[in-house]
């Protein structure tokens, strides 16, 4: 249906329609997202997302801050996954300035990134179930495990959430004593937790009824809209930047990319569970094979970095999808242009298509299944 037809058909029935505004303060909009919805009874006729309630001028600020000074800002993009954000930014700067990364640092990056993925997906499950109306139970189970991972981050980087860990050419600090053993212990523990969650959720009749066939996105449409990450793979498209680009040392690990078949909320939800298992495989291997050596390239310059003129795009597979940083340098100490490709924002483009024709209650679940973080959407 074209947009004019749509508007006409809406105005025709306008007597029966109800306009409601969900957000920016709404229990299920994951922050300050807002949706203007037009409802016919319980069915969504039209849905307009409204962005910008958390626009913190990230890109503008970055263009007047030094390259290194931007690192802490990237933490606050997708505030669940500060380490992957760090990595993506470091990767772009390394490409821009042509900096090599030592092996140990690459391994540490993989380990921290996969841990980030785990804690993100754990929290995702909790939030999704919260949106479905479980009174925080799954959320708290998820956060219980997440706290363990955050402990690892804290002992490694000094901060629970805003890690600011990666540096151009390596990582900021080496692992403390006993950290690897602790990480191994937690990796060994997690499969049990995942089994538990799977038992609790995947066969739950209400969860199945609420998610199957809701917000279905066919693979072709998903590709056209530029979706990435688990949302894309749930539609059955085999696209994972870790495999496609094999940045870092991902080519050394044996892992597979789970793919869904239908592309509805249930698939998106299941994919996260399956991805966590794959992440655990990577983690196990990486922790065992962690080589010794320097953690940062001694030749790499971090302070007062003035990369040669040019442009670079670095992308990684963040837990939410393809996270890319596009940088243009004019040889000065600050980026000339700094642009983030946030997976959450791009994944939101299909929100209206997913929601129209569904019930109001589904909108909430669909939004939850996309897994957005407003810090990244609005920047």
């Amino acid at each position, binding site marked *: 249906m074209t947009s004019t037809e749509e508007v006409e058909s809406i105005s025709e029935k306008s007597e029966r329609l109800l306009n409601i505004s969900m957000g920016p303060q709404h229990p299920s909009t994951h922050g*300050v997202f807002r949706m203007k919805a037009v409802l016919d009874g319980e069915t969504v006729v039209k849905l307009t997302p409204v962005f910008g309630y958390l626009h*913190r001028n990230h890109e503008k600020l970055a263009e007047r801050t030094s390259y290194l000074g931007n690192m802490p800002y990237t933490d606050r993009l997708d505030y669940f996954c500060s380490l992957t954000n760090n990595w993506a930014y470091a990767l772009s700067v390394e490409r821009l300035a042509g900096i090599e990364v030592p092996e140990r640092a690459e391994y540490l990056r993989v380990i921290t990134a996969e841990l980030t993925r785990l804690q993100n997906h754990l929290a995702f499950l909790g939030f999704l179930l919260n949106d479905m109306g479980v009174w925080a139970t799954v959320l708290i189970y998820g956060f*219980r495990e997440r706290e363990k991972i955050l402990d690892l981050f804290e002992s490694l980087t000094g901060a629970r959430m805003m890690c600011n860990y990666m540096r151009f050419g390596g990582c900021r600090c080496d692992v403390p004593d006993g950290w690897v053993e602790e990480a191994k212990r937690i990796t060994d523990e997690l499969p049990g937790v995942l089994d538990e969650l799977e038992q609790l959720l995947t066969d739950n009749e209400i969860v199945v009824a609420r998610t199957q066939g809701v917000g279905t996105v066919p693979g072709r449409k998903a590709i056209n809209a530029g979706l990435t990450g688990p949302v894309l793979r749930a539609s059955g498209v085999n696209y994972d930047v870790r495999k496609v680009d094999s940045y870092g040392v991902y080519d050394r690990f044996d892992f597979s990319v789970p793919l869904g078949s239908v592309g509805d909320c249930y698939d998106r939800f299941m994919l996260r569970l399956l991805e966590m298992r794959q992440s655990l495989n990577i983690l196990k291997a990486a922790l065992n094979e962690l080589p010794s050596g320097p953690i940062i390239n001694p030749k790499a310059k971090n302070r007062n970095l003035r990369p040669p003129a040019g442009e670079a795009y670095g992308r990684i597979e963040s837990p939410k999808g393809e996270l890319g940083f596009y940088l243009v340098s004019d040889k000065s100490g600050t980026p000339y242009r700094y642009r983030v490709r946030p997976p959450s924002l791009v994944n939101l483009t299909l929100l209206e298509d997913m929601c129209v024709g569904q019930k109001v209650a589904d909108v909430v679940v669909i939004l939850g299944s996309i897994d957005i973080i407003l810090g990244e959407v609005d920047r």
Partner: protein
Amino acid sequence: MTEDKQLQDELALYGVHLTLLEQVYNWGRSNSLWPLQFGLACCAIEMIASVTARYDLGRFGSEIFRPSPRQADLMIVSGTVTKKMAPQVVRLYNQMAEPKYVLAMGACAISGGPFKGGYNVVKGIDRYIPVDIFVPGCPPRPEALLNGIIHLQETIRRQKLSGPGKARHADRDQPSEYAIPEEGGRDLVPQYNAETWRPSWQGGGK
């Protein structure tokens, strides 16, 4: 008040315990602070974490996050307030029922934090609504939030309902609602609510 206190202590020596109505009133309020379910940015995640198993805000009777401002007692401004969001925050505050409290969580809510230099960030929510407790950090750890809430509880227990220095909600001269700022071209209009905040050159400051 001091005489009352002396009398109370003296009587307590003889086994007579007096409780002022005010104390009961404050005790009830302080132990049942229901926060507004309202997250702004990064700090919101730590706010959620403070409800979860390890930190358990519920021990203090505050785990009931009410999504409707009418039923909430405490507004935790958890994160960056942008110029687009500030009107909504003030509106939410106005919608809350007295007695109501505001906890500014994190650097952004206190002062704009790392994003203070940006063109779209409000430099502290205390410019628009009266903040009772500031919890610094970027983001503050859940323990810090718990500490802030415990401090708030103590503040509430000390509040007086009459006489000089009475609590804000008991004072008829103090407004219960504040002007909602609007988009005004360069900046929000008004730039701050004079009842609650003044720039330093006008004798403001904490």
